[in-house]
């Protein structure tokens, strides 16, 4: 037996916050994915907005390549404010 396609569900819990991934579900189409997501992930007013995305449409970085993929950021500590020395007594900097 073949199941309905998988969808990833994202919920915005309130204004001012971004949508956050909460889990996934099976549904035959987008409309039912939204309704199922409402019933499954917002039974207690956890959200004011929902996104559903077909899981097959998500492009992910390769965990095996993680080191090489993210290594450009490894040697750039000067991107952080803590890299800089500030003379004693200087404020608001």
């Amino acid at each position, binding site marked *: *037996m*073949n*199941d*309905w396609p*998988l969808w990833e569900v994202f919920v915005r819990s309130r204004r001012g916050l971004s949508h956050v991934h*909460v*889990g*996934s*579900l*099976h549904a*035959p*189409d987008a409309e*039912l994915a939204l309704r199922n997501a409402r*019933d*499954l992930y917002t*039974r*207690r007013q956890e959200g004011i907005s929902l996104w559903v995305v077909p899981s097959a449409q998500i492009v*992910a970085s390769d*965990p*095996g390549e*993680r*080191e090489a993929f*993210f290594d450009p950021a*490894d040697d750039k500590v000067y991107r952080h404010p803590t890299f800089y020395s500030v003379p004693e007594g200087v404020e608001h900097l």
Partner: protein
Amino acid sequence: MPNVSFDDLLADDGRVEPRDPMPDGYRRTLVRQIAQHAHSEIIGMQPEGNWISRAPSLRRKAILMAKVQDEAGHGLYLYAAAETLGVDRADLLDQLHTGRQKYSSIFNYPTLTWADVGAIGWLVDGAAIVNQVPLCRCSYGPYARAMVRICKEESFHQRQGFEILHTLSHGTPGQRAMAQDAVDRYWWPALMMFGPPDDDSPHSAQSMAWGIKRFSNDDLRQRFVDMTVPQAEALDLTLPDPEIRWNDERGHYDFGEVDFGELTEVIKGNGPCNRERMAHRLRAHEDGAWVREAAAAYAAKHAVPEEGAA
């Protein structure tokens, strides 16, 4: 950030995520445990669903429907967590339907009276919470996240059960007797929910080493007894075990011997309701086939061709 090995991750109490390398045994253990857990949630809808149409008031009925719907949701969270390990929900259901995977033995006991709905909420959901809270720190990320969500929802389940029993135990003598009878029948099976004793639990050590299990069966059982005995006193009901008494030296309640022979029998399929639960589950699945087919046909008919999408 260097790639960390599975063992380093565990040693560091880190979380394993779906596409990380992991030993085959770890993956298989998780699939079996999460699937069994998911099956328990959906089979667990049956004993209580049995009372929805006969709930004593509209308030109780709305609450019970919400609880049973939560259990369906718990099943779905868990099937989704299992699927991140590369298995299909449809296959897992198939394994349940053909008896190759199990569900918790507690759901093979009947709900004979309305008070049983109270006893299930208080004792069965109560025991489930004790089992599940440590799973929120399970080493496998998707399982741990599903458990956080589930545990948040469980506390209402336990409270509504406690409230049902409290109302009954302070009602007429008949209602009080009904509440006591339900507690008498559900107490020991609830203690069995923690599984076999530690010296007869062959997979526990490995699960502990893998960070799937955090506490031993007997430790969790003791924790449940310790929190439940005072609650029974508050309900003014007795627990059917004359050996329960506070042990000052241990700092715990002593309690009697659990009949694990009964647990083995129920797991083997010889509980009071094993056949009924499976037959009902199969019937529900087969009766729902036309809905699944209709929804798929509708989706296919209305599928927008890629180029046509604005």
